[in-house]
């Protein structure tokens, strides 16, 4: 007979629980408390209730940053997963190339975001490699001031984000492919189903768990994006790439005594991430159950 020993169980989880309380719950509680004060630089200050949140409600910079962040996340999640899926299917159908190509597509993920940002800033400069390439191909009409034009700056950063993590999404989709029962796919092929029909009717439904994981991770990562816009555009031009994380950073560390307001925006970003990621995950899990 298995004997329950709650004290022993508690002793085993206590260290992990203590770390979780110290590194997650305590900073969250302190950040919330800070957002309800008028602290200038993080020092102890007076309680002001929801004043910072009221300021946020009427702050056009906040709403602009929120719109930029959500737009960025939608584009990155869709493109990253679409490209990742295409890569995964290609690798699945080419087992001989899988080992080498699988490593190659993961290489951008292994670079730090700061390094990627600097490299792509140079490539996307007006006199950079991309403009030179387009000129050499006779496509001068397609050249742009990629990071200096508000119509292209945010999507240029999104493209770098997708380049970095499409391989990561592909790896997760590939794992989903490898878990598919081979006989189902073979049977469909024998029955004469085309590649598109096999994808729509068999592969896509069976990839539901991998899709849930990929979309959730990509959504959380892109809503919190910070390093790439910081390095590549510093939030410009004219604030067109200032995400919520960048706005928080400005309030905390770029002077003006706005530490508490920055903490309030950080709380709001947490709410945004939880609501969006939670909703998406709920919808995708329900889809998995239906399938």
């Amino acid at each position, binding site marked *: 007979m298995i004997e329950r020993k709650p004290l022993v169980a508690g002793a085993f989880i206590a260290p992990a629980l203590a770390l979780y309380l110290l590194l997650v719950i305590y900073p969250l509680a302190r950040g919330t408390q800070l957002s309800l004060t008028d602290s200038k*630089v993080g020092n102890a200050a007076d309680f002001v209730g929801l004043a910072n949140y009221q300021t946020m409600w009427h702050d056009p910079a906040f709403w602009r940053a929120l719109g930029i962040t959500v737009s960025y996340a939608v584009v990155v999640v869709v493109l990253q997963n679409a490209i990742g899926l295409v890569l995964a299917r290609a690798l699945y159908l080419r087992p001989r190339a899988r080992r080498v190509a699988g490593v190659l597509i993961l290489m951008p993920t292994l670079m730090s975001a700061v390094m990627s940002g600097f490299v792509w800033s140079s490539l996307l*400069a*007006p006199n950079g490699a991309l403009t030179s390439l387009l000129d050499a191909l006779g496509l001068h009409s397609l050249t742009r*001031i990629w*990071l*200096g034009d508000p119509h292209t700056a945010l999507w240029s950063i999104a493209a770098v984000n997708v380049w970095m993590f499409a391989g990561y999404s592909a790896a997760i989709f590939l794992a989903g492919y490898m878990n598919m029962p081979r006989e189902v796919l073979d049977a469909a092929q024998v029955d004469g189903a085309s590649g598109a029909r096999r994808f729509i009717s068999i592969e896509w439904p069976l990839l539901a768990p991998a899709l849930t994981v990929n979309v959730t991770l990509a959504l959380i990562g892109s809503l919190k994006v910070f390093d790439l816009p910081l390095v590549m555009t510093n939030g*410009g*031009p*004219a604030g067109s790439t200032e995400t919520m994380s960048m706005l928080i950073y400005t309030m905390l560390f770029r002077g*003006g005594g706005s530490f508490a307001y920055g903490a309030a925006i950080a709380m709001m970003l947490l709410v945004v991430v939880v609501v969006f990621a939670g909703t998406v995950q709920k919808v995708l899990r329900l889809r998995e159950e239906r399938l």
Partner: protein
Amino acid sequence: MSHVMNRSSSGSIAGRRRFTALAALSIAAAVSLSACASGTTAQTTSGGSSAAAAPTVLTVYGWKGGDAEPANIAEINAAFEKANPDIKLDYQFIPAGDTYTQRAQSELLAGKSADVIMTDGSKVQDWGSVGYLQDLSASPWLPGVRKEVTPFISQGGKAYAVPMEVIGIDLFANLDLLKQVGVSTAPTTWDEFLTDLAALKAAGITPIALPNKDGWTGSAAINAIAATLVYQQNPDWDAQFLAGKASFTDWAPAVQQVLDLGTKGYVDLKSELGFDTWSTGLDDFKSGKSGFFVQGAWNQSAFTTAGVNDVFIPWPAGGAGTQPSANLFVGTMLSINAKSTVKDAAQKYVDFWADSTNSGPFLESESAVSPFSQGTTPSSPATADFVKAVDAGKYRILPSNTWFGGATGEKAMMEETQALWLGQVDVNGWAKALDAKLGGS
């Protein structure tokens, strides 16, 4: 049964022995650690019997003195240690900007930062107001600080820093490129400037570089022009703006000058938004790729080292017969951590910097102006015209302690200027946006 009991009793004896050994080891480690800590404490305090042999260690944070901008800091620190053999300096270079603020501010919040901290006008306002910085109002050098500089080192009526420099952010001119097009001296009026730019353009040389990817150069250029076109007419503009009696519409002529450079084809303002100020911009001017360039005077040493034959001048914004005004910025300062345990040593360090015979090498390296009324400002052929304007009283100081400072001031000007260059707003729209964001009328 007995063999089971024997195994359990021998197991518990072994367990007791292991526990005893572990406890002894823990106690020994704790005793060693506390001995080390007390030894370290004795070394860094100025009192106590063990400090008679060991010098006081004074920790200093600064964003000058790194490889890219040595600024003769090491030389001055060595002179300080020679004059104060009982003090040993631990100078730590931390890169400027957000990196510096993240480290210093976080440590000040935790009560564990350096004894002396490099600051600026914004940091004095933020950190002075919350008690992070030591009150230096009783310092003997305070009455000698230029009266225009005193507000930048003060907060709430108290002084919290010794100013190290007042530095120009204005126009560099490449004399070699100007000579190629038959121009022997740098321009002093707007018409002369336009003539020089046209000559450079005709010769296929980039007339002026204004890399503005992060917005800094656009804001700097407009401020440099405003020094002449706004502040010569109204030296009290900043105070009037804060009181709601002046508006950024007064800056329209200054803004228009930059736009005119674009319409006349001397610079592609939209394209400049794709070039990085601090890498491409600086490297291109060092390589002799443009005739004129807006930057801070602290770059003069690097340009001289790179072999650029240049001069640093006030932006020639005025008409014939007008001497242009210099655009100055109250730069780095030194403050004492209010929680420092070696305040006497820290005070000696800031007092040392207040003496221009000691800080002269720093001012020379930075091509900066002394912040003290009776201080000596080094002059070189490259900066002679700029220093002449300052000595004649023709200058304006960027209000980094009021509307230009903090999270909103400079950032708002950078953003709105980028929007202007993109054509998203016109000059009136630019002025209205800044009036709304920064206060005033």
